[in-house]
């Protein structure tokens, strides 16, 4: 067992080495190929040749849209958990804030009756989510780590309960006729329609790419170094002159903003938002996806978010001993996580540093203090 694991591990490490050692143009070519693949993926003419990959029990392009939203969320949460090392258990709460901002300001069911266009509300939704992140983070990020976990958990529950029970947020009945993103084909048909999920998927995919470029630039800057130092040893970071509170708040608020964007995209596609979209479980799934993929690594978060969201949908329509696997999706998911944490606690594609943190020798000797 262990030898197999060792072999898998060294194989993966060798692949990593080869990737880092490959010439620049090879890496670019591969990257372009991967991106092109994902743009082509929702087309029936393409995915029908992909064997078992398309989901049997659900419309594959719809699934791809859901998966892309999860990937965007995982990339955002990775900033908070992976880079700055802050445990956010209620990340989906920010997604809800984004989606509800759009719903309240655009839907005819809303009491406000503002009926603003979708595109106008998106920046508002992002701004408002960021603001809620700052409001939540300002009192809690000064305290120790576990407080943040509890407060974020409470925040997400609060949003959900408000959604279920407040008249203003319409509970189960929800908000109808949320407008779609703008844009028309030459023949006057809207680009973002009701039936075809592809344009929405392409939109999210494009935004993921932009967000990833932004996040990558951040992590390679002083901001990124500050985040990593906070994650590794907050006191030491402070002793090196890093304004830790400020940077933690930044990470928390930028993560929130990305969730707000995801929520706005979701609302714009779905046309309908109600209280059932925001179960606590979703927060846990995204957090697990980030850890599963390898927190602290952007590629890890993308793979984790994508794989987890996809696998859950993939179980639809598969029967084993007369039960649909989909019914047991969380059991299977939980088992996979437990196995992972035993054999590969640093995640599928960990960050190099993160892997080193797991090997930290300081834990060998207990001195002083």
């Amino acid at each position, binding site marked *: 067992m262990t030898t197999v694991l060792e072999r898998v591990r060294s194989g993966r490490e060798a692949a990593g080495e080869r990737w880092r050692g490959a010439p620049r143009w090879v890496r670019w070519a591969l990257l372009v190929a991967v991106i092109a693949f994902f743009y082509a993926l929702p087309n029936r003419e393409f995915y029908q040749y992909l064997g078992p990959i398309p989901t049997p029990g659900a419309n594959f392009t719809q699934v791809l849209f859901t998966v892309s939203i999860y990937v965007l969320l995982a990339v955002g949460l990775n900033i908070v958990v992976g880079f700055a090392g802050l445990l956010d258990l209620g990340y989906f709460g920010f997604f809800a804030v984004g989606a509800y901002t759009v719903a309240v300001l655009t839907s005819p069911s809303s009491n406000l009756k503002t009926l603003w266009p979708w595109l106008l509300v998106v920046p508002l939704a992002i701004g408002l989510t960021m603001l809620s992140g700052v409001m939540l983070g300002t009192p809690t990020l000064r305290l120790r780590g576990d407080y943040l976990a509890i407060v974020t958990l409470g925040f997400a529950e609060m949003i959900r309960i408000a959604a279920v029970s407040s008249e203003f947020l319409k509970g189960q009945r929800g908000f109808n006729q949320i407008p779609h993103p703008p844009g028309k084909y030459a023949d006057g048909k809207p680009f973002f329609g009701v039936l075809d999920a592809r344009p929405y998927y392409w939109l999210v995919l494009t935004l993921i790419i932009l967000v990833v470029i932004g996040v990558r630039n951040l992590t390679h800057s002083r901001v990124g*170094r500050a985040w*990593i130092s906070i994650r590794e*040893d907050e006191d030491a970071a402070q*002793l090196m*002159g890093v*304004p830790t509170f400020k940077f933690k708040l930044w990470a928390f608020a930028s993560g929130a903003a990305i969730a707000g964007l995801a929520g706005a995209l979701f609302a714009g596609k779905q046309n309908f938002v109600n209280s059932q979209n925001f179960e606590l479980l979703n927060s846990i799934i995204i957090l697990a996806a980030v850890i599963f993929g390898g927190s602290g690594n952007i590629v890890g978060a993308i793979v984790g978010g994508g794989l987890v969201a996809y696998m859950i949908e993939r179980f639809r329509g598969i029967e084993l001993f007369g039960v649909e696997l989909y019914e047991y999706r969380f059991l299977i998911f939980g088992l996979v996580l437990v196995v992972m944490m035993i054999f590969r606690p640093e995640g599928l594609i960990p960050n*190099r540093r993160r892997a080193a943190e797991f*090997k930290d020798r*300081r834990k060998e000797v207990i*001195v002083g203090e």
Partner: protein
Amino acid sequence: MLLEIDDVSLLYGRIQALHGISLTVAEGEIVALIGANGAGKSTTMRAISGIRPIATGSIRFDGEDISKLRADLRVRRGLCQAPEGRGIFPGMSVLENLDMGAYTRRDRAGIAEDLARVLDLFPRLAERRKQAGGTLSGGEQQMLAVGRALMSRPKLLLLDEPSMGLAPMLIQQIFDIIKEINEQGTTVLLVEQNAQQALARAHRAYVLETGKIVKTGTGAELLHDPAVKEAYLGVA
């Protein structure tokens, strides 16, 4: 005076760890702070570097009252601590750790110069520049912590037990390096269990007992003080 601490008390919740401590460090000095386990030496360091707020009293650094200043801003004023128990960044390489030491600085040329100096002081770190901090041996981590603190080019360097966990040969070496750093112009406040070595090199020293300063004098005076000898130097 570069550093003046006046009547400082510090609480951990209900536990009072410092009871009105006063001490001073003049520019160019090495000042040692010695005391038994739990006397409050590290706590004093935390109060000075600002990672723990003080309850009463004042701390002045370079003519400015910094009692309420945030820790990271104190670093910018020229005060840098190498924390006890090493406190290096385990996932960062040796070079990246040293680079973090210069976080508050922007003068590239000066940083490169200091990096060369640190690698010169600690050839072991130069050999292992690409290795992750967390995989270094205890002694190497200790050197890295000291080297990293130097990278901020502090006016006052706070060292909390730099010799902890080192082999006798290395202890000798690290004290020599402290002396050298001091001669190159950095003022040093040094906490040590290794009282013999510390007192032999310090210009002045303070003895801390259960959160109070009980004795002070030049290094040589305390080295020959019968009470200090008995309590901290292991001679009856």
